[in-house]
């Protein structure tokens, strides 16, 4: 991680981790139930079953830890506009719970086996429980806004709640696009369509959503909030392309997932799409056959990896990521924030796109 960013990270990580630890309940009682459901508890209920089914699976992911990049980015944006992160303490926990409950969904969509070096939630608890838990916990994660924990004005709350709703629509549409391409074995996805799908599906938390919320909460100028959203989208592209690369060839033990899952799921990543559209016909047919077979045979997956190397696809995706990284930096330079924060955001963009190792 670049030096100044690492310093910032180290200065704030304990505070953020405390927020995460304190945000999501570790036990359920009448008050917790009424807080998250808004319903009166007429009869004493099985709070242990509620905890184990809804909260525990997300808690397991939280306990494994992650890089907590998103809360760090929120802290960075808040401070850039002169706001004090201490005043928005629950926000950091909320962001990380949103992230961890949503990746639980990603895991069962992809039929992944591992996440953060541990079994995925659906492997431990079954698919139905992972579905129920992730959807419910994801909704509950937003309670600080729905319950107005931070005592925001109605106008500010409305702005954030409507933005959250819009992001969920985006996520939903992006998701159906991705699954349609995968399940229908679509081989003519344009690069722009793939990027758009990625942005729709993921920008909720990576990184447009968190940057927007920070901007709204810190009373950033409206033109800056629009810029923060755009910066978040551009950084997402680089971050995501790096993730696709890592799936194909993990460079670090920190990766925490099984390599080549995208091949097994038949997912039309940009690597795969580029190959499908540029490889000669016979190789394309081989690739299509492998993708359609949903194999997890390492030898067969290796064939795809060799093709990626042969056609220098990593060069292409890295250039694309670098291009979006430059776009992000251009927008960062237009923000009305002190130079030190522009530099920190530059470093964050570089880090998200290139390294991702603390």
């Amino acid at each position, binding site marked *: 991680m670049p030096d100044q960013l690492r310093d910032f990270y180290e200065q704030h990580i304990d505070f953020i981790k405390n927020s995460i630890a304190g945000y999501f309940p570790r036990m359920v009682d009448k008050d917790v139930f009424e807080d*998250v*459901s*808004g*319903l*009166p*508890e*007429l*009869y*004493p*209920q*099985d709070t242990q*079953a*509620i905890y*184990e*089914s*809804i909260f525990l699976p997300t808690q397991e992911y939280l306990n494994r830890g992650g890089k907590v990049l998103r809360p760090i980015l929120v802290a960075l944006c808040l401070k850039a506009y002169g706001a004090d992160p201490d005043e928005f303490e629950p926000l950091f926990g909320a962001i990380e719970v949103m992230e961890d409950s949503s990746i639980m969904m990603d895991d*069962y*969509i992809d*039929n992944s086996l591992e996440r953060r070096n541990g079994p995925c939630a659906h492997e431990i608890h*079954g*698919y*139905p*429980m992972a*579905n*129920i838990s992730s*959807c*419910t916990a994801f*909704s*509950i994660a937003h309670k600080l806004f*729905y319950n107005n924990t931070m005592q925001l004005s*109605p106008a500010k709350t*409305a702005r954030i*709640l*409507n933005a959250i*709703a*819009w992001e*969920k*629509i*985006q*996520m*939903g*549409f992006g*998701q*159906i*696009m991705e*699954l*349609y391409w995968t*399940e*229908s074995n679509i081989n003519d*996805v*344009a690069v*722009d*369509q793939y*990027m*758009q*799908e990625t*942005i729709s599906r993921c920008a909720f938390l990576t990184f447009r959503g968190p940057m927007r919320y920070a901007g709204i909460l810190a009373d950033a100028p409206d033109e800056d909030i629009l810029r923060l959203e*755009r910066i978040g*989208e551009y950084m997402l592209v680089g971050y995501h392309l790096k993730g696709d690369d890592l799936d194909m060839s993990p460079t670090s033990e920190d990766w925490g997932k099984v390599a080549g899952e995208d091949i097994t799921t038949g997912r039309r990543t940009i690597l795969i799409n580029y190959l499908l559209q540029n490889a000669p016909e016979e190789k394309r047919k081989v690739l299509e056959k492998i993708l359609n077979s*949903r194999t997890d045979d390492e030898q067969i997956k290796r064939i795809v990896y060799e093709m990626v190397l042969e056609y220098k696809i990593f060069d292409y995706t890295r250039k694309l990521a670098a291009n979006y990284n430059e776009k992000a930096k251009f927008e960062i330079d237009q923000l009305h924030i002190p130079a030190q924060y522009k530099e920190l955001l530059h470093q964050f963009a570089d880090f998200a796109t290139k390294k991702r190792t603390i």
Partner: protein
Amino acid sequence: MLNILIENFEENFLPPGNHDQQDMATCLEQEWARLNDPDYLEKMVIGTPLLQWDFRVLDQGFSDLILPFTQSNSFIPVLFLHALRDLGCDNAKAKQAMIILEYAYYIAAVNDYFNFQQVFTQKERNLKEYARLTQIKYAGQYIATYPYYLLIKNVFEIGDETNNKIHKLLSDIIAATGISRGVMVKWSHRHFKDVNADMYCQNAINSLSNFFICPVVLAAIFADVPAVDLMSLKRAFSHLTLFAKLRAERKICSGTLKPDVPPVYMDSLKVLTFPGLPYINSGVDLDWREVAGETTPHIPSMYDLILKTLTTSLPADGLKATMAREEQSFAAFLLEMEQTGLLKNTTDLIRKSYKL
């Protein structure tokens, strides 16, 4: 399905001359067209893309998957429309919120359909089937989020506070119904051992909170009902929810309720009519081995086993205990409604429907 929970529903809530059903049908038809219109989606819902959308998904990866789930009528909007009128808030803008209620019903059915699949109780991973189910589930997820554009674009022409209350209500109901499904799955893993009547009843209320509580409180929010009265309405309609569910459970056991729903709604129907309290009160010990599943029990099969057992031998004491709970709940509903002084017509209509 509200017509299953409220007896004599059509006769009382949809009498001749009442246009609610027609209004609903028109509204839904119009919205379905918009849902499949790329221009409308770009203008009102998903916006202009930074890069490029792929609208092929609408025909081939969405509408075809979700269509079966739109073939059931929840009738929840009918209760919503009645409540709006009763609260003097019968305006064309607020009425459009029925789309949110109906689409929430669809996603609940999609989730129940997904969660209760037998394939998930088997040891062997069936990735092809998982993929099919996941695609359906996410078609449902999109349709659940889609109608929120009505709030974002302020189609209802409401202030920020009302907007925020609606967002909160919808999120609360998602949490309550999600919690109820999680608990039900958890209980199924231990074959409902150590589940007492109180626990069961609260979970029953949570599980059907979208049927009564949601539409009535939504109407009350549009009508600017104060917070203290909103809470009274939640209490009242929690009691009514429990009453209606227990009644349905008892009737399904006695064979006097034979609802007809599309196949994809069978799992939601089984949630609605799951004969949990008669089972708990019966003291019967079941041999769960036949519904064990290779990894976890299959809930619809548990339902069938319980029902098969209770329809042949429902102990009188158990039946009495269930009916006592029903009566207590309905009485609590009426008392709470009397204290609020709200929704008199709707309350009378409910009494009339149940002939109580």
